[in-house]
């Protein structure tokens, strides 16, 4: 793939849901390019289709029509099994409610995606320790999620997202469940991932403060990407 070409290329993407006999369009003819190392924020009112777009880019939902290429791979044509393999090595997820497994320690939660990688135990340990040091939680590796604050849990979730060194990171309201201070810390961490590790982040948010950290903000309204409301920082 050409280095100058976008890492995510979305063309004429449409998605609708069926509710009884009604068909509700959620995304209408979306076209979007995201460059490598870009920090993109998707904003818009509730029900505008932000999370659906994020899910489609991350390969956890299927589009009705259109094309999504991530790092040259046309993911709309992949089967469920192929998508599972693809997600495991190409996408890191950061959720609003952290979605850590409560019976596993911080270390084990971060190690979870690596269990599919075929790495040895020693190699996995090395990767997890690196990820823990990135989020500055090495001293909490044996704590379970219930023993960590919200901000710490989200840092563990970020470590889990980056541990496989994915092509893109998708974050759905990553600061939505955090207090202001913790939210700032998480956003700073995400900025560091972009600047220091050249990660590509696509973030859905309602929070204008969070959006300000992004390089670019795209607005969605009723399933339409509003080009006029694009903000570049």
């Amino acid at each position, binding site marked *: 793939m050409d280095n100058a070409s976008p890492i995510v290329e979305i063309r004429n993407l449409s998605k609708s849901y069926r509710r009884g006999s009604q068909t509700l369009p959620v995304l209408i003819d979306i076209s979007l390019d995201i460059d490598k190392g870009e920090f993109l924020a998707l904003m818009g009112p509730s029900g505008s289709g932000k999370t659906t777009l994020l899910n489609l880019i991350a390969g956890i939902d299927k589009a009705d029509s259109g094309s999504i290429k991530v790092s040259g791979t046309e993911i709309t044509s992949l089967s469920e099994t192929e998508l599972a393999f693809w997600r495991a090595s190409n996408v890191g997820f950061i959720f609003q409610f952290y979605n850590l497994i409560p019976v596993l320690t911080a270390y*084990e939660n971060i190690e979870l995606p690596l*269990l599919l990688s075929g790495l040895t135990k020693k190699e996995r340990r090395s990767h997890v320790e690196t990820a823990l040091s990135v989020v500055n939680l090495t001293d909490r590796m044996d704590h379970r999620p219930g023993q960590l604050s919200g901000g710490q849990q989200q840092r563990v979730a970020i470590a889990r997202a980056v541990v496989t060194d994915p092509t893109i990171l998708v974050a759905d309201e990553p600061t939505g469940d955090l207090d202001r201070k913790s939210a700032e810390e998480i956003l700073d961490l995400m900025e560091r991932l972009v600047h220091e590790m050249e990660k590509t982040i696509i973030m859905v948010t309602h929070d204008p403060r969070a959006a300000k950290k992004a390089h670019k903000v795209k607005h969605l309204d009723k399933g339409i990407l509003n080009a006029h409301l694009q903000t570049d920082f």
Partner: protein
Amino acid sequence: MHIFKLIFRNAFRHKLRTFLTVLGVTIAILAFGLLRTVISAWYAGVEASSATRLVARNAVSLVFPLPLSYKDKIRQIEGVKGVSYGTWFGGIYIDEKNFFANYAMEPKTYLAMYPEIIIPSEQMTAFLRDRKGAVAGRKLVERFGWKIGDIVTLKGTIFPGNWDFVIRGIYRGRDNTVDETAFFFQWEYLNETLKKAGRSWTDKAGWYLIEIKDPHIAADVSQRIDKTFKNSLAETLTETEKAFQLSFISMTEAIVVAIKLVSFVIIFIIMAVVANTMAMTARERIGEYAVFKTLGFRGFHIGGLIFGESIIITMIGAVFGIMLTFPVAKIFAHELSAFFPIFNVETKTIYMDIAASFVVAFVAGIFPTWRAVNIRIADGLRRIG
């Protein structure tokens, strides 16, 4: 981290629910094991019977005797190796509730056909010398606290009067399939007493026990015996010892079928209990399973987590249930020795326990797995928060 660690931790996330489910499985497997043991005990006599022994009885019914003169005629039939005979006595010891099998038999030939009955040689000699001597099984002696030399009085039901016997021997079984609760005495004692009293049933046997040279000729020898006494005053019905024992069980087959049915109903009930536990578990964790799928885990990984948890919970209960089956069966054996002389937990029963547990675990995991695997990731993630 190993995935088994996760399965194990998941199994104990809701400690009370897991404890109650394990308890339910334990009780169910215990009940299932005991009922299967009751069924085995029912068939114990059949299982212990020999393929080289035939039983000839009156073709009309067992309550009608056969002439003693048949003994020599049977012995001459081709394929017959030995002949003995016995008569059901049906005596009561003190009270009817003290039931045990008691019968008269010709000791030398009869015991020669039962190598599984072991009597110390000096006791055997004493028994053969004493016309009023009797031999009782080890468990029977323990039950009533008898010892060698004790006089035991049985009240006759078929043969009225009080009958005194001297305990001359205590037998034990060669293995645990041998009934050790029987009581037998010399047929001559019965016959002479009946003769003196001028009663019927003198010089008559309740049944003939026939040893054959080869189990493969059992059907031929049986036919020859019955043919020999065809159109006589007492026609015979000869069958293998196994068929003879089965004929008693067939009278109570409805009970056996009912017990079998109940044993499977228990498994069905516990299946529903474990399935409910697993359904609740999967419903609560549907968001987590969506996270697993998001990270790249596939359907069989999710299925592994759910089935693994179901197997852990069920097998812990099964292990406790199986472990408890042995002491509880021992108590049953002691309390019900009059009805079930042989009450052993068979290896087959343990295998059935394990098989039933796996079936329960597997069936209980099917629906939750199907649900967790088929839910869309986006829908699963929406359940969180």
